[in-house]
């Protein structure tokens, strides 16, 4: 981040005129701590299968509901552990039914029965498809719970069993296994890699064909996306290389849920180091992603924007690929999107493009991004405004003097200065740094007087002055620095007190050898 380690970062800026893109571009923040509610626009990690009536009727026509519901937990344990296939089926079905009810499924109780290893064993009963299916379903729903719940399923040995069921001749069993595996993969990087190491990918990919029903395809895409998900560590590169071509195909599907989940998958793949971004760029999918960013459906637009947002955290060349794919043409609309979360994501994306070299900044100007940026800075909600502030900060760090002038002329100063009242120390600091950048540009033009007048007219001076008493020491030092440098009449800055030698001024010196 450009405002982290102040001194050395600053030196970098002077030398390279701030074009050290690795320092400016901001990766998606690694937030291991959240205070807020989980975000609603994130993709779902795990899903439970609640009762589908058509499954009940078509697959288990023989089932007698009254009889089922009367099975006690003790009965279930006994039946499951017994050897009567009919009873096994009934008990497993009863278990699955409890786990499928809409409210408060008794996952913990079922786990405590200790029947998971048995259920896993049922998965291998290739001669008894109904039993396999019911067990798979029950396990899917257990795995959809907390991490402890998923762990219980994995510890029961379910991974290899489910993977072999992918190739089951019965489509509904194979589909249920895909689902279960998706829940396991979504739990953590650890289980995800365990699946990959058990070679889950080839049989999973083999399920994708033009003939695959769309419901099934949605499940597969979702599971694939969970296999791409999670960091620390990232999923292995070679596995991703295998998945990617299929994802690219799925992204071209017409079903919006399939598109959505494949976009999410790509967004996970791009959320990492530049070599990961590169393999996505190399597929040539960026134009399609940009096209999807323009779609009205939130479930498509959100992950597509994320993916592109991640791509532009990469190198200048990778960012250029996104620009060439047309991202700058769709961003204005997204910066003005009705949903503030989209505005925020779009502004973040823009901030990373603005962190590029001046030719990219020029494209940003040419494509008319300044008016929506200023608008957002003025009227957006605070989260989006913060990102817009970063965009302006990066712009002023890497832009040429002419570009910075254009930025100021587009009216950025007023909303920027107003945000000095934001209740967020970091944002305030970034704005103060931006103001310093603006003054540096003004210095090169001999226009500091005009800029300081403008800042004062827009009530900025008063706000900066007030910040001199801010509780955060970095904030007040930055404010003080601006006031001293640009708002205090003449300067005596080179007159700091010096160290004095001894009080006696005798003029004498001993010669030494010189070598410069």
């Amino acid at each position, binding site marked *: 981040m450009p405002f982290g380690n102040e001194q050395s970062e600053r030196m970098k800026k002077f030398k390279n005129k701030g074009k050290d893109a690795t320092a400016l571009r901001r990766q998606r923040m690694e937030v291991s701590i959240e205070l807020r509610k989980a975000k609603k626009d994130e993709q779902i990690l795990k899903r439970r299968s609640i009762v589908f009536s058509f499954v009940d009727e078509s697959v288990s026509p023989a089932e007698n509901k009254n009889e089922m519901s009367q099975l006690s937990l003790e009965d279930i344990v006994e039946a499951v552990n017994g050897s009567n296939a009919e009873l096994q089926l009934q008990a497993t079905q009863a278990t699955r039914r409890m786990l499928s009810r809409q409210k408060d499924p008794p996952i913990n109780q079922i786990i405590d029965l200790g029947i998971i290893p048995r259920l896993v064993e049922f998965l291998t009963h290739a001669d008894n498809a109904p039993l396999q299916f019911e067990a798979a379903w029950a396990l899917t729903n257990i795995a959809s719970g907390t991490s402890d719940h998923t762990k219980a399923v994995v510890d029961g040995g379910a991974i290899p069993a489910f993977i072999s069921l992918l190739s089951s001749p019965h489509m509904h069993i194979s589909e249920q296994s895909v689902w279960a595996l998706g829940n396991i993969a979504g739990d953590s990087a650890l289980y995800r890699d365990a699946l990959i190491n058990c070679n889950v990918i080839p049989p999973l990919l083999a399920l994708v064909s033009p003939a695959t029903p769309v419901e099934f395809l949605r499940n597969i895409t979702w599971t694939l996306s969970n296999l791409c998900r999670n960091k620390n560590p990232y999923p292995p590169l070679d596995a991703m290389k295998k998945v990617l071509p299929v994802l690219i195909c799925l992204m071209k599907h017409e079903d919006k849920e399939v598109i959505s989940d494949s976009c999410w998958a790509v967004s996970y793949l791009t959320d990492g180091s530049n070599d990961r971004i590169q393999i996505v760029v190399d597929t040539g999918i960026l134009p399609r992603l940009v096209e999807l960013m323009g779609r009205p459906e939130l479930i498509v637009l959100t992950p597509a924007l994320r993916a592109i947002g991640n791509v532009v955290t990469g190198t200048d060349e990778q960012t250029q690929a996104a620009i060439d794919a047309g991202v700058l043409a769709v961003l204005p609309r997204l910066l003005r999107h009705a949903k503030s979360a989209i505005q925020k994501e779009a502004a973040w994306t823009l901030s990373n493009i603005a962190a590029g070299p001046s030719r990219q900044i020029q494209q940003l100007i040419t494509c008319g991004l300044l008016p929506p940026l200023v608008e957002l800075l003025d009227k957006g909600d605070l989260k989006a405004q913060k990102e817009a502030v970063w965009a302006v900060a990066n712009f002023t760090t890497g832009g040429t003097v002419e570009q910075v002038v254009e930025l100021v002329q587009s009216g950025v100063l007023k909303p920027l200065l107003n945000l000095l009242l934001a209740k967020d120390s970091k944002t305030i600091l970034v704005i103060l740094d931006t103001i310093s950048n603006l003054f540096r540009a003004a210095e090169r033009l001999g226009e500091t007087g005009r800029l300081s007048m403008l800042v004062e007219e827009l009530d900025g001076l008063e706000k900066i002055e007030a910040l001199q008493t801010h*509780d955060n020491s970095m904030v007040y030092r930055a404010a003080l620095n601006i006031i001293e440098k640009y708002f205090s009449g003449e300067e005596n800055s*080179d007159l700091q007190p010096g160290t004095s030698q001894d009080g006696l001024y005798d003029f004498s010196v001993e010669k030494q050898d010189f070598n410069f």
Partner: protein
Amino acid sequence: MELSDANLQTLTEYLKKTLDPDPAIRRPAEKFLESVEGSQNYPLLLLTLLEKSQESVIKVCASVTFKNYIKRNWRIVEDEPNKICESDRIAIKANIVPLMLSSPEQIQKQLSDAISIIGREDFPQKWPDLLTEMVNRFQSGDFHVINGVLRTAHSLFKRYRHEFKSNELWTEIKLVLDAFALPLTNLFKATIELCSTHANDASALKVLFSSLILIAKLFYSLNFQDLPEFFEDNMETWMTNFHSLLTLDNKLLQTDDEEEAGLLELLKSQICDNAALYAQKYDEEFQPYLPRFVTAIWNLLVTTGQEVKYDLLVSNAIQFLASVCERQHYKHLFEDQNTLTSICEKVIVPNMEFRAADEEAFEDNSEEYIRRDLEGSDIDTRRRAACDLVRGLCKFFEGPVTGIFSGYVNSMLQEYAKNPSVNWKHKDAAIYLVTSLASKAQTQKHGITQANELVNLTEFFVNHIQPDLKSASVNEFPVLKADGIKYIMIFRNQVPKEQLLISIPLLINHLQAESIVVHTYAAHALERLFTMRGTNNTTLITAAEMAPFVEVLLTNLFKALTLPGSSENEYIMKAIMRSFSLLQESIIPYIPSVITQLTQKLLAVSKNPSKPHFNHYMFESICLSIRITCKANPDAVGSFEEALFMVFTEILQNDVQEFIPYVFQVMSLLLEMHKNEIPSSYMALFPHLLQPVLWERTGNIPPLVRLLQAYLERGANTIASAAADKIPGLLGVFQKLIASKANDHQGFYLLNSIIEHMPPESVDQYRKQIFILLFQRLQNSKTTKFIKSFLVFINLYCIKYGALALQEIFDSIQPKMFGMVLEKIIIPEIQKVSGQVEKKICAVGITKILTECPPMMDTEYTKLWTPLLQALIGLFELPEDNTIPDEEHFIDIEDTPGYQTAFSQLAFAGKKEHDPVGQMVNNPRIHLAQSLHKLSTACPGRVPSMLSTSLNAEALQYLQGYLQAASVTLL
């Protein structure tokens, strides 16, 4: 130290002694305590004393000592020994919370501070039980205890309001939320219930409301970084209760005090802050609640009285409305004409009224009044908040708001007209309203720069402002006079010039007003008018236009300094300075009287300098008197010296540190006015100027160097002949300065003057030493600033003594030195030199090295010839630094750091830039061409061949341009 009664007794004795007024007893006791504080058990002894001592004074003293001990020692600094032993740390943490909670309030506060200091270091990792321990006390039902916990929590959590987001911080907040949010919410609900059950018990209510205030503050801290899930889920509880508290009133909680805010006001004020926080940061989630808060806060404003104790609450509340009304999606809450009218009528107008407290300040505390009113330190006042609300409303509703207010302004003016002496406050409010309505952008330097076009400012000025200022009595309705003058001041860029000219005599007249505010405003307004720019960078108001008023202006300005309360009025002194600068030679006839008055003033204030700005402008005015007079009549310098030297001597003898730098600057100015040899009075002072004690003060260095330069310019020969024994001392000063990275440039100023002006033979014996000294700095601690000055100096030397002399002295210090300096310093660094004169000196010096230094042509130095030429061409062709300094008259000095840096440069004592090569060389490029031509005639063929072998093409092209311009060719 053991936890023994004997030790407790000893400690008690010493603590008692630390309270003794006699330092002979107090100091040793403090020393003793310091010497034992490293011992184990010391803090536990203090804790025992503050709990169990029989004497309450010892309890308090022990608690303060304990807190200070914690403050100094608790933090463990890396690589430093742990100052408190581990067992003491554990014991302190185990005991301090219950101890704090059971202590009386005075001790509780100290311990609470100590807990937050410890918490800052140890919480949460090393003090995991703290939160549970605190939360458990919520159940106690004892609000003395609960408030202690809340206060401690507040001091622990308030840093969440300003720290940067980080994983570490958020981990802590999450931990706090998990343990604290629910109990706090329950406590909040319970406290509110208790408030209604105890609605008739004043003393219980006070305790409960103290809790509510702390709870509301904690809410703010915990919600600051982001909206926590818990608070989002419980927003209904919190906001509903906050809302009803805003509307609550209870006679028992009303205070009689008019000044101090009561508990109810403090609580409501904090709730306004909380609502503003949510409105700003969590708009999406808070939207459903916002309209309710707008209504409640608005009703609050309508029903709150004018007393000072409500000021913070009212300005917070108005600021909340101001921030909401500017937002697009809340526009509709204000849109209705009735709403707007009602806001204007019931919120804005009443809060713009001039209150009794304002009137008091106007009369009795005018300095503070002026600071608030003029310099905008009014951020928290009601008027200011009302003004912000006007501007906020104008964003969407400029037309309607202007319309509504025009009606008010008119009716208030009518009220005034009916009976001015009773209703003058109505007019004051009307003027204030017009001002806040009209001003859209404002700066100190230029006044209002953008005005509301719907307000006719000139008409208002002519009809309502001028009549007040024209009235026969300058002392009648002083507040309205001040308003009128301020109106001129801030709208000076909107009102046409002819109106300003009409106003000038009126302003001059008001310099005589008895009211401090009025005559100060008059002086300030004149000063501001005199700095307005006309066309062509001249002043808008010319000296010619001012001619009829010169005498009365000067008379009234100086008379104003004799009015009670204004003897050191900086606004008046600044107006004097600005008048001199504007009027120039038309002040000459008045100088004798002026300088007498200034000297008397100087003498008076030098007894006890207390107003830095006043003093600064006074010295500026003295400088201006000297410059203006001596420009017309150089011989007048003598009479200034006569008038000033007595006071100066006194200042120097009494060592008035604040004034000494100024005195040196004025003396420099005077000395520079002399056309002939230096007067003997100055020479007598010369040895004193070399006294080390003077040079130890940083603030003296620049003006003293400047003064010594003036001595060298005017009196180098006299120094060489009559004070030759002082030359080592002079060079000693140079050496002292050069040793400091901060002051080395000053050392070079001095050295350059020595080289330029002193007769060569007088410094001959020191020359080698000077260079050795410079080389040492270069070798050991070179900085860019040093190199730049060094380069200018050696080139100046080269110009003065010749290139050959330069080469010889270098090589006499160490063989091949000259080549090394060329190669390692001059060639690579010359482009760093900045400043036109500096660049010119370097250009001429290098030209000399290239063309007048035989060793450059026929020794191993020859290989450096072309690189040096190339570097010189680079110096020529670098873009010039062409920032033009502002014209002196306009320079604004008000924000000069003044005494803080201990050197206050006087703008009007300014030194003209000195160009030592000015007469010798006009155009250095042509000079280079001519010199090369001369060289090539001396050794035909050599120069073109050197050029063609290694000069790069671009440089060659530039060079050919120079040759063409000089009409010479190379042979």
